[in-house]
């Protein structure tokens, strides 16, 4: 009797539905897709084993990935070990399988279906099932995690999870999206959570603060020593190890992250061989600090890798709600009066490059015909004179009706002082005065959001796709708390942006994207400044890289030993023989030829 009752209880689901999920059956006509056709990018010669030592600048305040104090750069290390349902191929940018083997798009453009890999398992051994995703959504919406942004995001972007069976489910969005956006908005960064681990009550924040959460990725934290180090250990029998796009990646057995609170001191540790790799993208490190014995004797090598991924949009936005910048000729005058090239060739040591348009690194979606307007006093003079600013006052600054041609530049980082002062001094030659308003980062960002700036000197982090709507659509102009810093309000541009958002065909989208960039260039309220289309690292010679050492869209592999949402991390490996050889050579004084590798496989042009 007792067993019968139990089996009845088990047969009836605890709840047939909740606001977060419901049972459903597969709609007819669903076309399942996968992608095993794209090239692999990891090196088949990679060897497993060894310990990689790296450093972090501060110990994380928590091991949680959401909730108070979780927004730390360390979070990417934990999140990257939650395998994503799908990834974007780091070279072809097409969708490739991850934790899901197949995916399909619902006819309503709001749903995406996934088949979970049959072997996919948690670090505690339990299989990954559809309900784990339903619980993931429930958790992100729960007040217990004390994360209002996540509560809001997962309530407004996500509608619910449809559970088809244990291994098949769908994510339903609140808005319509094209296929790319469905992956981008719904699949990327949305992780299953283990309901065995998380008890969503008022103690959650405290309870799991230092607990190691079960994950689905290649590594798991094996030990932490608070304030000192965190060790990640490779799972010996990880379910994904032999999948096409995971094979030969994640080669190192252990990754030890030491806390070294000062970058200069960390570099000394590196030079002593206590760290295996070091990020050298900053010019001062690459040129001035990465010198000396260990480099000359070939024990430590340098690698400069050019990538072709979306570039952060650095620049200056002229606020068109300010009377001065309503006149396109004034804007053009300013474009030609900013001596960005001089900043690049002097204070930035020729290391950074000129950004040419608002959105570079989006493959065919980037309009490569556009070139940033150069510093040209004649052209600046022509445009400014045309706008009525022909006369110069006693201090050499142009005047018109008793007003001086002066504009305020708002920026948020004192480290940019040396760049801004060069722009200021050079602009004087064109008869333009720039007054500098250095605020702290948060206050500066707020000033720009409130549109209280005249010129916003800032930058936007690179996204998987351009943010045309937020930054340049008229809907977001003339009002506070939007990202349209230039207050661009151009009906022709609005039409293109709207069309681009609704377009599902990749080629047409790219074509529209190029036209949008052209129009932004013509409006001339955005002055592109610089880009850093590469990463540079130094590594001991026992660290080995595939050929080429990175992918089209990869980022600094030392800074991001694990990178969430991306599929290019963990491609290097350690050669134990080379390590023994090097250590012996250092003792005996034997040297190797110094190596500085510059890889331009994915260099633009």
């Amino acid at each position, binding site marked *: 009797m007792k067993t019968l009752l139990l089996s009845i209880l088990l047969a009836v689901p605890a709840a047939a539905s909740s606001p977060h999920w419901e049972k459903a059956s597969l709609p007819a006509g669903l076309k399942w897709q996968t992608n095993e056709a794209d090239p692999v990018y990891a090196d088949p010669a990679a060897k497993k084993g060894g310990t990689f030592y790296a450093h972090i600048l501060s110990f994380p305040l928590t091991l949680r990935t959401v909730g108070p104090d979780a927004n730390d750069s360390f979070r990417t290390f934990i999140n990257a070990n939650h395998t994503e349902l799908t990834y974007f191929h780091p070279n072809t940018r097409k969708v490739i399988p991850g934790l899901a083997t197949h995916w399909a798009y619902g006819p309503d453009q709001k749903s995406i279906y996934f088949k979970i890999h049959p072997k996919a398992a948690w670090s505690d051994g339990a299989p990954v099932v559809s309900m784990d995703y339903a619980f993931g959504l429930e958790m992100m919406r729960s007040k217990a995690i004390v994360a209002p942004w996540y509560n809001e995001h997962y309530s407004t972007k996500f509608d619910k999870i449809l559970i088809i069976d244990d291994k098949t489910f769908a994510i339903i969005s609140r808005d319509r999206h094209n296929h790319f956006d469905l992956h981008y908005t719904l699949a990327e960064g949305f992780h299953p959570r283990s309901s065995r681990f998380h008890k969503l009550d008022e103690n959650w924040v405290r309870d799991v603060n230092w607990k190691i959460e079960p994950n689905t990725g290649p590594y798991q934290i094996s030990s932490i020593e608070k304030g000192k180090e965190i060790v990640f250990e490779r799972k010996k029998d990880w379910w994904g190890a032999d999948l096409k796009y995971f094979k030969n990646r994640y080669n190192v057995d252990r990754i030890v992250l030491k806390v070294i609170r000062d970058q200069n001191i960390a570099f000394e540790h590196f030079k002593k061989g206590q760290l295996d790799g070091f990020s050298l993208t900053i010019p001062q490190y690459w040129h001035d600090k990465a010198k000396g014995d260990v480099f000359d004797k070939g024990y430590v090598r340098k690698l400069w890798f050019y990538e072709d991924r979306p570039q952060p949009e650095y620049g200056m936005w002229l606020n068109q709600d300010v009377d001065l910048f309503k006149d396109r000729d004034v804007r053009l005058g300013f474009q030609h009066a900013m001596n960005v090239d001089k900043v690049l060739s002097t204070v930035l040591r020729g290391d950074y490059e000129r950004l040419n348009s608002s959105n570079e690194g989006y493959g065919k979606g980037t309009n490569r015909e556009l070139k940033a307007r150069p510093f040209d006093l004649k052209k600046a003079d022509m445009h400014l004179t045309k706008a009525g600013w022909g006369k110069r006052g006693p201090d050499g600054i142009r005047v018109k009706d008793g007003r001086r041609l002066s504009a305020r530049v708002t920026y948020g980082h004192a480290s940019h002082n040396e760049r*801004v002062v060069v722009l200021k001094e050079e602009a004087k030659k064109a*008869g333009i005065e720039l007054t500098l308003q250095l605020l702290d980062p*948060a206050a500066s960002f707020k000033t720009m959001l409130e549109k209280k700036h005249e010129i916003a000197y800032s930058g936007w982090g690179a996204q998987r796709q351009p943010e045309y709507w937020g930054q340049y659509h008229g809907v977001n102009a003339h009002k506070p708390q939007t990202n349209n810093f230039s207050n661009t309000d151009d009906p022709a541009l609005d039409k293109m942006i709207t069309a681009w958002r609704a377009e599902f065909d990749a080629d047409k989208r790219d074509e529209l994207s190029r036209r949008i960039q052209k129009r932004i260039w013509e409006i001339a309220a955005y002055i592109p400044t610089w880009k850093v289309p590469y990463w540079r690292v130094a590594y001991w010679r026992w660290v080995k890289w595939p050929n080429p050492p990175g992918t089209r869209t990869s980022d600094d592999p030392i800074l991001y030993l694990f990178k969430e949402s991306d599929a290019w991390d963990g491609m290097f490996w350690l050669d134990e023989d080379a390590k023994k050889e090097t250590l012996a050579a250092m003792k005996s004084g034997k040297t190797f030829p110094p190596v500085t590798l510059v890889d331009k496989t994915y260099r633009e042009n």
Partner: protein
Amino acid sequence: MIFPRLDPLTRKKFSRFARIRRGWWSAVLLTAAIVMSFFAELFVSNRALVVRHEGRWSFPAYGAIRPGTEFGQDYQYETNYRRLKKTFEEADRGDFVLLPPIPYNAYENDLPEGVYPPTAPDFASRHFLGTDTSGRDVLARLIYGFRTAIIFSLLLLLCNYVVGISIGCAMGYYGGAFDMFFQRLIEVWSNVPFLYVIIIVASIMVPNFFTLIFIMMFFGWMGMTWYMRTAVYKQKIREYVQAARAAGARDSYIIFRHILPNTISVIVTFIPFSVSGGIVALTSLDYLGFGLPPPTPSWGELLRQGTNRLDSIWMAASVVVSMIALLTMVTFVGEAVREAFDPRRHTVYE
């Protein structure tokens, strides 16, 4: 305020001050440095002192800028006199340019091709202390930074003392409820964390020279009140004050004419230390990034660049050495003044 005429006692104090050698020489040097810094444009500037062009003389050091076209160059912006000098020398037609000894101004970026700032001290290019991270002359920024700091400090001192002394005197003179009220007010006021207020203000607006003085005065006037209050209490009961009062003198007359001159030694003793306090305060605020807005030349800002780039030691070293020299001199002056004005040496209590 009416200061006393040089009575024998004051003269005695001055001669005593002059006899304290290191204080005296420090005072002379400091005064010279301050006076010279007011004419810094004549020593440190990218503008020429004298230009002779086609028989015409011009003196561009002060006044409106002169575009390149005025001297036969092909550009509209301010003449680059260093280049003009070379051009004239090459042309060799009797035109000449006389540049100041340090031919750079504090704002200009000297960024020649192929050299990356900061550049080390170099006599050939006349960067006697090198350049900073954006190629500006360190010595020029040091000198103009000194001028800013000293003017700032003196103005701040004036404001603080006018407010502090007035309120302190009034507290001591009127006493009673008035005194009690201000005592409590000052106690509360002193507990407002001044640095945080500055940080908050600086993060929402860019403080300029005068707002910064105003803010610092707002929290700095209390220091003098206590000393003045005690000094005035002491003087108030003396016979000469009683006599003046009996003769029907007004309160303000008694305070400014009788009491203040007799407390002057207290004030004078504090002045040098307030000056150095003002300089240190401004420098540390600039160092933290909450002081005067860039690109104002300032020691604190230079020090920050220097500590970030210890491999280019000339930046940090210039500021540290100047700072030590300046503060040591101010302290010497302060000590000498205290010594010279020590009332125990001049007065006899009856």
